[in-house]
């Protein structure tokens, strides 16, 4: 069984979540072929062998640096044909998921995204996926020969199972129509830990009283190597950018540790964090609904607790 894994690019490096896709495909017991597009760090591509890839294809053309949905779908589809792969595994993201959709339509494949566990193959091919924004799960059976699987974060554990391998150049044929959407520019927060990939997230809500107090959140996040997030009201009021909004209609996160400061815990916010392994809630109001969804709670003033927490964590590091 040949499984193609799409390796997403982040500023010329391999996106962390793509390693989970490699680990997932390896754990499925297949022959794992990784495909990377755009200019990327050669050492990182070689290292994909360490995580389970048996072949690494690299389409290094700089015109693939920007993620054009149609072009990526065309290239991935032709790589699957060339490598005789029936299954595509990728990590769900703002690029991966739309690309998965088009690849599945090109191949007439069974398509499922938000997958959280390895398939059960005892009878058929059954995967477990998250639905209702993490409030429930569905087990679905994929019945077509070709399959496209989008993974939610933490669907597989990244492990060292092999050693680095050579990278094989891959030349892809694309047509002008694949570039019908033209990316004119982009803006990106640099140097920060990306929220959807972060292992630790520190989020602030209205209880932070204003954007001028975000230094407390940011400095704690920095010490923890965490990403910063916020509640919907905070992004609606413009205290923080929209891409930091965690919740039902914002970013859904699945970190090891989620620290919520001054967020009351509306059900829409909980929907974005309920896949977190451990939730800490700090809120002045001991009756805040978020405490019911938390593992650990402190009923206290954020402006008093946050600096102490920061000191205690600094001491630990």
């Amino acid at each position, binding site marked *: 069984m040949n499984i193609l894994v799409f390796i997403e690019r982040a500023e010329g490096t391999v996106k962390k979540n793509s390693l989970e896709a490699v680990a997932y495909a390896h754990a499925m017991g297949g022959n794992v072929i990784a495909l990377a597009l755009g200019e990327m760090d050669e050492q990182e591509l070689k290292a994909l062998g360490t995580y389970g890839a048996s072949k690494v294809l690299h389409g290094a053309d700089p015109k693939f640096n920007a993620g054009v949905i*149609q072009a990526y779908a065309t290239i991935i589809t032709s790589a699957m044909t060339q490598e005789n792969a029936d299954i595509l595994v990728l990590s769900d993201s703002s690029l991966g998921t739309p690309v998965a959709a*088009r690849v599945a339509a090109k191949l007439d494949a069974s398509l499922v*995204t938000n997958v959280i566990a390895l398939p059960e193959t005892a009878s058929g091919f059954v995967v477990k996926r998250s*639905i209702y924004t993490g409030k429930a*799960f*569905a087990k679905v059976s994929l019945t077509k020969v070709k399959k496209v699987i989008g993974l939610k974060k933490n669907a597989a554990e990244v492990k060292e199972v092999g050693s680095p391998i050579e990278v094989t150049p891959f030349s892809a044929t694309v047509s002008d129509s694949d570039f019908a959407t033209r990316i004119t520019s982009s803006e*990106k927060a640099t140097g920060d830990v990306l929220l959807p990939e972060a292992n630790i997230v520190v989020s602030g809500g209205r209880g932070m009283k204003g954007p001028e107090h975000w230094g407390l959140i940011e400095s704690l996040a920095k010490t923890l190597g965490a990403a910063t997030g916020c509640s919907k009201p905070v992004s609606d009021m413009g205290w923080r950018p929209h*891409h930091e909004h965690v919740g*039902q209609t914002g970013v859904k996160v699945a970190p090891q540790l989620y620290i919520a400061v001054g967020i009351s815990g509306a059900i829409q916010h909980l929907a974005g964090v309920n896949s977190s392994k451990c939730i800490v809630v700090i809120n002045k109001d001991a009756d805040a609904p978020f405490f019911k969804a938390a593992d650990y709670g402190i009923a206290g*003033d954020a402006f008093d607790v946050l600096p102490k927490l920061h000191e205690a964590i600094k001491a630990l590091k």
Partner: protein
Amino acid sequence: MKILVCISHVPDTTSKINFTDNNTRFDSTGVQFIIGPYDDYALARAVELKESMGASVTVINVGLADTEPTIRKALAIGADDAIRVNAEPTDSWFVAAQIAAQAKEGGYDLILMGRESIDYNGGVVHGIVGEMLGMPSVSPVMKLDLVGNTAKLAREIEGGKEYLEVNLPFVAGCQEPIAEWKIPNMRGIMSARTKPLKVVEPASVDSGVKLQQFELPPPKGAVKMIPADQVQELVNLLKNEAKVL
């Protein structure tokens, strides 16, 4: 200009999720259904475009007769007519194939929908529809402006945004802040009653995805409260008990 807006009929965001029939059916007892919040943004932007530059707005929903109040709400918000594909929306592929089948004949310049429905969260219907119709697809779109035949878009990416241009026709999966949600006014509600709502039977489709069973997450254990003056204790617990530091 002709705009098609695809809407899902989904449980209100505050709904408690439960299942029946040995965990194979969604339990709609006591659940309030709404236009998918992301679809609602797409609809609002379509109505804005109609108001600012003239367009006809058709809404399409794949659903059984119980979705008609949701469709009427979309008509009250400002859509001109509606299509209901009379079938249960079992999965993304099925829904996308039905939308593509209807859109093929429609000659739409713009096909808008939410980035994902909030029930199955697939986030793929726009891509499948685009591929099936041979149109570009872009998602998640947070800004959409038209200059002649060209759309200028902003797409959210992890940690930022990307600006794009694409010519009509194309498919977009939308999200905030593309437009402000519109609340239907009395005139809209009255006129929605008589706007055309066409019911069509579904095309035969093999989606290749079959539901086996739903599951609910295990109940959460009780929260451990730590006094505000013992922050060190929290750090110890995170390190030694939860093992997340």
